[in-house]
């Protein structure tokens, strides 16, 4: 069953742009990305959109649909009222390259700033033993498909370019939490550096990131809040503060 859909697409580049209206066919069961592809193939051959797997597994087709950060491949057209105009715009937190494609290199720079996993040197390959229950905590965060919707929606950087140098964002807080909870990781001080170097303290746990996560990772509850609590324990423990004055204690 084919019907007509009013689609409003942001077109332009870093210098100029605006919303363009198109009318496009839509079939039963289609997602927003299908409709964008149809526009591309029939009306706007040079419409830029990023996508890959079209199955919600790669996190490429991130955009804002009626103002909400979403994956276009996982957004059913049928989830909107018939007759409603669907507006698609690029992610707001990142610089525009063209049309729906933004420059997400910020995220890759931040990824390079997070200290890597450190494997225990005494454990040869194949010797690791871990309980399922212990790996599951980190596995939740390793489900992340790096769509960067959480980064896009986070108000610390969404409209505050000035915070970007000092704020890693929710995606990398769960990366730090994942390593911090990894049963074998040997690097110390991950929580403290999260606070001191990656801007954990700037998050005021409004849970916007959790709401937009297509993998339903409990970013705030399971990663950010536990880390914040531990940071408080470490940094503001009166006994530690006192003993820290007496000697440089081993941090964690």
């Amino acid at each position: 069953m084919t019907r007509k859909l009013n689609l409003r697409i942001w077109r332009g580049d870093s210098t100029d742009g605006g919303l363009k209206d198109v009318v496009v066919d839509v079939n039963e069961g289609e997602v927003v990305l299908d409709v964008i592809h149809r526009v591309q193939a029939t009306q706007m051959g040079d419409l830029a959109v990023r996508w890959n797997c079209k199955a919600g597994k790669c996190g490429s087709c991130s955009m804002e649909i009626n103002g909400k950060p979403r994956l276009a491949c996982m957004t059913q057209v049928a989830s909107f009222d018939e007759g409603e105009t669907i507006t698609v715009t690029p992610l707001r937190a990142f610089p525009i390259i063209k049309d729906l494609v933004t420059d997400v290199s910020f995220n890759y720079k931040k990824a390079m700033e997070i200290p890597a996993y450190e494997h225990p040197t005494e454990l040869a390959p194949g010797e690791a033993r871990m309980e399922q229950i212990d790996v599951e905590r980190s596995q939740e965060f390793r489900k992340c498909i790096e769509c960067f919707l959480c980064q896009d929606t986070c108000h610390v950087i969404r409209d505050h370019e000035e915070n970007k140098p000092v704020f890693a964002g929710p995606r990398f807080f769960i990366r730090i939490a994942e390593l911090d909870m990894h049963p074998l990781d040997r690097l110390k001080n991950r929580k403290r550096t999260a606070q001191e170097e990656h801007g954990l303290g700037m998050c005021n746990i409004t849970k916007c990131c959790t709401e937009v996560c297509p993998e339903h990772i409990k970013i705030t509850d399971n990663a950010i809040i536990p880390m914040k609590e531990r940071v408080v324990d470490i940094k503001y423990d009166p006994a530690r503060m006192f003993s820290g004055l007496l000697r440089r204690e081993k941090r964690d």
Partner: protein
Amino acid sequence: MPQNLQKLKYDVVIVGAGGAGLRAAVEAREAGLRVAIICKSLFGKAHTVMAEGGAAASMGNANSNDNWMVHFRDTMRGGKFLNHYRMAELHAKESPDRIWELETWGALFDRTKEGKISQRNFGGHEYPRLAHVGDRTGLELIRTMQQKIVALQQKDGRETGDMESNLKVYAEFTVTDILKEDGKVAGVYGYWRENGDEILFEAPAVVIATGGVGKTFKITSNSWEGTGDGHALALKAGANLKDMEFLQFHPTGMVWPPSVRGILVTESVRGEGGVLTNNLGERFMFKYIPDVFKDKYATTEEEADRWYTDQDNNRRPPELLPRDEVARAINSEVKAGRGTEHGGVFLDVSKRIPADVIKKRLPSMWHQFYELAGVDITKEAMEVGPTCHYVMGGVDVEPDTAAAVGVPGLFAAGEVAGGMHGSNRLGGNSLSDLLVFGRRAGAAAADYVKANGAVTVSDATIERAAQRIEAPFKNEGGENAYSLHAELQEVTHNLVGIIRTGAEIKEAIAKIADIRARSQKVTVAGNRQFNPGFHLAFDLDNMLLVAESTAKSAILREESRGGHTRDDFPGMSDKWRQVNNISSFNGSEVVVVTRPLPEIPKELFDLFDIHELEKYMTPEEIAKGGSR
């Protein structure tokens, strides 16, 4: 030559940032070389993320009877003895080390009760063998290696002050040519997808790790990137492709709604107990157990059901036959009118496994069906049907080094390489393949560079490469790449798809040639800035060469084996088991010739039961008992 052409010099350039490319990059960098990784998408989005079930490695954690010899046998059997024995041997021997190594880089696989890496059952594997993380194993692999790359960059940063000094990722970049000087590899040429600016990478060694060709077909599990770039680049650089007629149609892709048609439904659904039924409610796979597998699969539902709890005393359910068998069976059921409303069959886990266990073991399947099809797989059956998933054929390589035969300095690993899987790949053998041969390609490329030194690309070579990129903008009045692509997909789907006949393949060859002629004049709208129509023009060129190679190989092979089914030649033939089809490119078209398979050495030959070999080999071959 383009103004402001950027020229970069590296030791090794890796084309493709999926599992094989990243594993090769790690190896080459750890050997001390400067490495560039090029990918068409963003870093970490490669098709490897879609791999769900797991990575096959005979660690023996779930069943201590498992070892490399059993894995080798399963792989050869699955490939119907057309595999390169040496690749299957290396793969079976080395995959456990490759998995354990990932753990030292931070990977977190699911665990057994003893705390070891858990292993799950999969089609064609005699024992539970797949290391996995729920049903998102590919994501775990790619993320682990992506993070390993970052770890190496951080190390470089500490030593040189620049994290990208010796290992850099060039994302959203299209490679249009592999460049050669004096018959040897000298680099690659291409353009940034973002702005169309061109770059010359000068490098004595190039590793191709570009994955598959699924987008040549209409219904596929592959993402847009699977356009056979590496296959075509290698062909044009003078390498050969081997056995391109063998395509794996994964038996279970989604069939409804139409927009998700082809998206994969992991084999783990069957490994965990999912059963296939037709519209009569009949569990039909029992009718389709081929003679060569008769003694390995259960013949009654009772025995098949018992297997899930007692694998030592029962044979496995026929739902777990190799993929080619299951895909053909589903195809036959649908053709006979016993399919579902949307042209598939039913796959059901809801009656066998409790809802919470399904959500735990198959989380992304639950998610995928719930969000894309409105189906709750804990309560109802899925509708599934075959989808083009994997190409067994690929670049003809030396097994030990992954070096492309005939082109010094060129290497190929992962799906783009041929030979490892014979006529049909077992599930789980792809993730381990890309680790084993990605590593070997990276190491061999490093050795090659150390032995051969730097190269320089001539201006004339650069000029030729640059002109190719300019061409689509200069054409006027030609067709658009989208419509030609759609036309090609119809041809391959209808005429060289899952079931083939000589007459249809012949028609396909003529049609592909016609589309190829028209594609030379493709016209592109707009400018070079992030222009998908422009990008598709190059992808299309690659897909057409691949399709031509597939069709021309398929018409030669007059038998049915693995991922090549000829309705006019339904059985396996002794003659065709002993040869590979070798495609080359003469500058204007693909030419296919046959070449004898290497003989299996005696020590590997002796791993098989003679009665099993009798199903595949001639009495003369058996009497000879392998080489040496």
